[in-house]
Each structure stands twice: as C-alpha cells, then as structure tokens.
C-alpha cells in the first residue's frame, strides 16, 4: 500500500513539474477573473449607491469567519458541483442537479425518519438522485432526447411533486409550513456534514481517476472517437456519469436534511437554487473533484456573506445576488468559454 502511495506521489510530482506553467497560468487566470469580478461588482454597487468596500468587507469577513457553518453550507454545493462536472467529463450537460438534489432530500428524509438512521437516509438519498439522473441519461441514450431539455422539465416536475408530497403525505403536525422533522438527536454535526461531503468528493476523484469506468467516462468525453476505437460503449459512460453525478446530488440533498434543516419546507426555500449554483461550482473547480471542494467553500462563503450584507445594511436580496452572480460569472467565464468552443468544434465532427 505504501509503495502504491509512493508511486502515486511520484507521478503527482512529475505531473506538477510538467504542467507547472499550465497550473500557474490557471491560477493567474483565476486571480485575474476574481479581480475583474470584484471590480465590476464594485462599480455597480457604487452606482446604485452603496459603499463597495463596506459591502465586500462584510461579505468576506462574515462569509468566511464561521468555518463550521461555512463547511456545512458548502457541502451540498460540492455535491451539485460534482453532479454537473462528472457528466460533463463524459460530454453530457447535466443541469438537472437541482432536482436530483430535491429527490435525494425527499427520499433521504423519509428513510432517515422512518428508520431513525441518517446513514440509511444518505444511501437512500444517493439512490434517489442516481435514479432521477439515470432517467435523463436513459432518455438520452435510448430515445435520443437532449439531456438539457429533459433536465429542465424534470426540475420543475420534481419541484411541484415534492411540494405536493410534503403537503399531502408528509406534513408536520406542529408546523404547517414544514414536512416531517428529524429529531435533533438523530442529526449529524456541522463538522460531520462537511467531512461527508469531502469524502464524497474524494470517492468521486478515485472513481474518475483510478477505476476503469472513470477512465472510460473521461475518454468518452475527451475524444468520443477514441472511446469507440477502444471498444468502450458510449452509452455506458453516459449512464455511469449521470448515475454517479445524480447520486452525489441526491446525497448532497440528504446532507442538508441530516446536517442542517432536518426537514423540507413547503416552498423548498432551503433547497432551491443549489443545483444551479452547482454549475458555477463545477466550472470554477475546473471539473476536478478536489478543485470543486475549494470552489464549493468559496461559493458558500459568498452566499453567507451576502446574507450578512442583507442583514447589516438592509440591502435587498437582488443586490447581493447580483454581486455574487457577477463574481461567479467572471470566475467561470474563461473556462466555460473554452469548454463551449470545444463542444462547438466537436459538433461537426460527430
């Protein structure tokens, strides 16, 4: 085992040595985009009458001060980031992370509630998300239906169905706007929530880079013709990436239930948007599970900071949303652009 570790480490160092320039340029790109993002955001704040320095100060100090809370908020984002990135590595656009997370939250909550065991809940959450993601993949693979369209429709289907289920079948007798509630004693701590998210990301990393199915996923996305030449079934790669990505989103949904809320509210306010934000998390993390852990933390910090800004300055939510939005777009733009050009370039060659 230690030998394997040693050879891995050697390979890793060699990789860093050979791609030093590329990594440095990547880092530089991130720093420059962040600066651009903050600059544009500052200008906008200035013009609508806020003091940019003050706002940023609140965002960054309050956003990143409570590490336990930061990690917990980051956990679902890391998962939805992976839910976007893993299929993308196989060449599939999964914008269904949103509803895969919902499904995981719902089933995870139910199973954890019934069995009094969050671990079973987490497994159920994973399965629910995987099946929901697998549905998109199956429609694409066996019926040729574009995954983006299916995902958009399924997102809304899941949204309303879950609200209905909560209201009708799983209502909370004490609080009418909530679903059944996990007892606090059965929930997990903030630290555990974040740790479980990191473990999820590490497993994703291992699968992608150290197993045959992960390799097949990456080859299918990077050069479909090579995948066919090697005799890999492109359908398998798409299915596997969506099952894994969807599963992780579902697992992330259960993490929120098990670690933070213990229940789902009837407007889904604690879940809504996490899947979409995951797209930014995945792009900023450069589609790499380890990068996604950090970008998830960064995003969570911005979101928490934004809420503090609202609280302390009375700024309406759209102001902070705009600010986070601009920063996120600036950070993922260069990479997203490259991905898009790649995708467009390949369309003709299919």
């Amino acid at each position, binding site marked *: 085992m230690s030998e394997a570790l040693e050879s*891995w480490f050697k390979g890793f160092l060699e990789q860093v040595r050979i791609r030093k320039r590329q990594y440095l340029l990547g880092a530089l790109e991130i720093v420059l985009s962040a600066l651009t993002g903050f600059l544009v955001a500052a200008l906008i704040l200035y013009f609508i009458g806020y003091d940019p320095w003050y706002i940023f100060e609140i965002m960054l100090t309050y956003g990143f001060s409570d590490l336990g809370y930061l990690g917990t908020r980051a956990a679902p984002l890391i998962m939805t980031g992976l839910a976007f990135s893993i299929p993308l590595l196989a060449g599939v656009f999964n914008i269904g992370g949103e509803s895969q997370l919902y499904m995981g939250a719902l089933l995870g909550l139910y199973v954890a509630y019934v069995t009094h065991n969050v671990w079973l809940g987490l497994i159920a959450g994973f399965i629910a998300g995987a099946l929901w993601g697998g549905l998109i993949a199956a429609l694409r693979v066996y019926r040729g239906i574009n995954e983006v369209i299916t995902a958009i429709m399924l997102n809304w289907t899941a949204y309303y169905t879950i609200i209905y289920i909560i209201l009708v079948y799983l209502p909370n007798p004490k609080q009418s706007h909530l679903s059944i509630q996990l007892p606090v004693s059965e929930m997990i701590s903030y630290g555990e929530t974040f740790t479980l998210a990191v473990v999820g990301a590490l497993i994703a990393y291992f699968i992608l880079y150290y*197993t045959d199915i992960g390799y097949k996923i990456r080859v299918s996305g*990077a050069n479909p013709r*090579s995948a066919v030449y090697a005799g890999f079934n492109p359908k398998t790669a798409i299915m596997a990436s969506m099952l894994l990505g969807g599963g992780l989103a579902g697992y992330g949904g259960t993490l929120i239930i098990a670690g933070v809320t213990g229940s789902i509210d009837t407007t889904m306010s604690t879940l809504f948007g996490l899947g979409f934000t995951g797209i930014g998390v995945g792009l900023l993390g450069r589609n790499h599970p380890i990068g996604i852990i950090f970008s998830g933390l960064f995003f969570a910090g911005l979101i928490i900071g934004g809420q503090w800004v609202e609280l302390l300055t009375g700024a309406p939510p759209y102001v902070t949303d705009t600010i986070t939005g601009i920063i996120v777009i600036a950070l993922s733009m260069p990479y997203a652009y490259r991905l898009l050009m790649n995708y467009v370039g390949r369309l003709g060659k299919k």
Partner: protein
Amino acid sequence: MTSNEYAVEMRGIVKVYPDGVVALKGVDFLVKRGEIHGLLGENGAGKTTLMRILYGEIKPTRGEIRVFGKKVSFRGPWDAIREGIGMVYQHFTLVPAFTVKENLYLSLLSVNPKARLSDAISKADKIAEETGLRIPYDEIVEELPIGVQQRVEIIKALLRDARILILDEPTSVLTPIEVRDLFKALRKLRDMGITIIFITHKLKEVKEITDRVTVLRKGKLVGTVETSKVDVKTLARMMVQREVVFKIEKKPAKPGEVVLEARDIHVIDEEGVERVKGISFQLRKGEILGVAGVQGNGQRELAEALAGIRRVSKGRIILRGKDVTGYNAYQRYMKGLAYVPDSRGTGLIPDMNLVENTALTNLYRILGWARRIKWDRAVEITSRVIRELEVVAPSLYAPIKHLSGGNQQKVMVGREIVREPDVFIVAEPTQGLDVAATEFIRKTLLRLRDNGKAILLISTDLDEVLQLSDRLAVIYEGRFLAMGRPEEFTIEKLGLIMGGIRE
C-alpha cells in the same frame, strides 16, 4: 545580394515551449522566391514548430523573421495570411460538416468580409483552371477522400492570395497517383511565382520536387543544400547522422494455421452506403497480408469491422477458431487482436498524457482488484513503448498533443506492438515517421511475422505493401479486385487495378 532575393528569412530562431522543451535552438532558414524548398528532419526535429512560427500560430522565443524583405512580427495567423502566407496542416482545418463551397467562402470572408459566395467560386474556378487541382463544390467535406480534402485546403490558401505556401507532410496520406497530381500542381504554382515550403519524410520526393532543401536535426540547422547536388544517401546521413539501410532483409514466410478469417463480410456506413461489398480472406500465422488501395475504397470500414468497431451487415468473422462476429472491440482486443487506425484523431486523446493514451487499448491488462486501474503498470508499459520506439517526449505525463506528429504515431503503433498481438491489423503504420523510425516499424512487423503473428497491413504506400507483404490484395470500391504474391504486381499494374481496371 539584396535581401529581396528571399521570400522567407528566418534568422536565429529559438523556441522554448511553455513546458520547457527547447524545440529550436537558433535556426536560420532561408527560402528563395519562387522555389520549392524541402524541409527535412527526424521526428521531433522542429519542422512543424518552425512552420507554425512562420505562420504566426506561435511566437518565437528569439529570432528575426522577414517576409519578402520586410521584417515581421505576427500576432496570429491572420497577420501571416495578410503577408501572403498560407499553410496546409497535416490534419486539416476545414469545417467537416460544411460543403466545399461553404468552406471556401468562409475562408475568403476572413480576409474580405464583403466577399460573396459567387466571388469565392469564380476565384476557385480560376485557380483550379491554372493548377489542375479540380474539386467538387457541393459535397460535404468529411465525405470526401483525404486527397480531395487536401486539394480543397490548398485552394483555400490560394484563395486568400497566398504567395508562400507551406505544406506540412502533404504526401503522407496520399497514394502515388495523388502524389503525382499534387506534384504537377506544385510545379504549376511555382511557375506562377508562388514559393512553396514542403515538409516530408520521403527522400525520393525531396529529390523529385524540391529545388533546395534544408535539414534540421534536434532543433539545430544541419544545412541547406541544392537538391541536384546531393543524393538520397547523403540526405539521410545529414538527417540521422548515420548510414540508413533502405533495403530490409526479409526471410521467406512460413505460414501456419488460419487465425483470422473473413467470410463474405458486408459493411454499411452511417449514411446507409454499403462500403464493404463482400470480402472474404484467410489470414495465417506468420504471414503479412497487404491491402493496397486508394483511400476511401472501404479499407477503413473493413479494418473497423474486423476490429469490432463497426458491425457487419452480413458475413462472419472468425478469430482464432472462434466466431467473434458479435464481439465488440474490447472483447476482441482481449482475444489477442490489435488494431492501429489510419488516423491519430481516432487513436489518440490529445489532452491526455502518454500513460493515459497507452492505457486506451491496454486497459484490460492494467486492471486490478475491483476494476481499479494500476497506473504503475500502465507507466511500465508506456516506458517500454518510449524505450523501444525511441519516442521523444519531455515526460510520461505530457499531454500527447505536445509531441511531434511522428512521435505521436510512435506511441499509437508502439502501444499495440508491446502487446505482441497474435492478430495485428495495421493501417498506415509509418505515416509521418522519419526514415529511421519507418525502418524500425517495418522490421518490427517482420519480426512479429517471423514469430508466428498474423498481420493485415493496410497501406496506401505501395513501396511499403510491396516490400512487406507475403500476399497482396487490392481493394477497390469495397471488393478485393486482385489477390496474389507481391512479385506478381508492378507499381504500374497496381496503380491500374487500384483505379478499378482489371486486365
């Protein structure tokens, strides 16, 4: 002498790639106006790098460039195009899903936004008239044979008024007849005053077409000479600094049992066109069966069907006594079959490193418990490929797209050779390889044959198939038109059969 004598003057060119590879170490490269100038050198010598610099695609680390006497510093190819430079890459830059005329129009638009489609066509017509490079306008590019696509590329460059035309290994994918047509066109272009830079690994071609030739070696200039004053041997010595044997020893074959058999196979492509129309053959241990033919006559579909990448619509394939018609490629590879495709775009994943690329067809050999990939095993195999084929690469972990074309080819062929496959289907194994590497691959194929392996060699290089094959088949429009011993064919006779003429 005034500097106006030269179309291109590159002096003291140094190129250090971002990963620290020094590709050019101070090269002087001078091309006279209106000449055909050959550029020679081993794989990885820096030829493509030098030309990409001239074309403005990458910037030199140091050095001065003059074009028609004017000092230039290009920010991108568009600057170079404006100065009258055109480049035809080995892998083409046409939009595959567009028709020929759309591609031509697109390229004309990039220099003249007000151009109309009719302008592009009338101009292309004129060029075709003058050079003899005939092209169809309404066909989709990706459906055209490589030779025709290349003509479109050349016309595309000329449309933009190129006065200096760079051709990077244009002949490595062409049949002798296509090469002859290309050379005719190049001579006409020269007579029209266009300067041509011509990269090739085939010394015969250098002798035939160029006026002067420059030889590079490991990023340094060996020299520039008048072609008429040197012979092929001297050129080879300048390139590799040792004697090259052009004749390969070949022992008589000792064919054994049949290991691959095709029984009346038919293949239909994505468009519903039947590309292989009933081919049957038996391939025995210890023999090389050559398949000659003009590209686009079904040899790719045949190879892919045999490898399991494509389904046959009819017929059976028997591999080592077992009917494998229903097996996929991966299963056939595990049964001892290997296939080298005719295109690196299929065989390699540009963004992945050497180890990951080697893993592609060796995957079943490096899987451990629970389908885990044992990367150290993959590293071992890759190191062997690098050592045995003398691949020039900065590191095992460099993305393969950073290797020179020939070195990529070595990885693609080498990763199959080290598997010691029982049945080996190779298409264009030496395309883009220098003389030494070509010699090595050919000798290796013969060694595998002598060790009892069965080889199906598909090549448009007639010298290659004639030299290596024990039996030779000629493919034309999806059928084997002739089958016989190589001695029964001459180049002329082969040429006729390849064109569909049976005596």
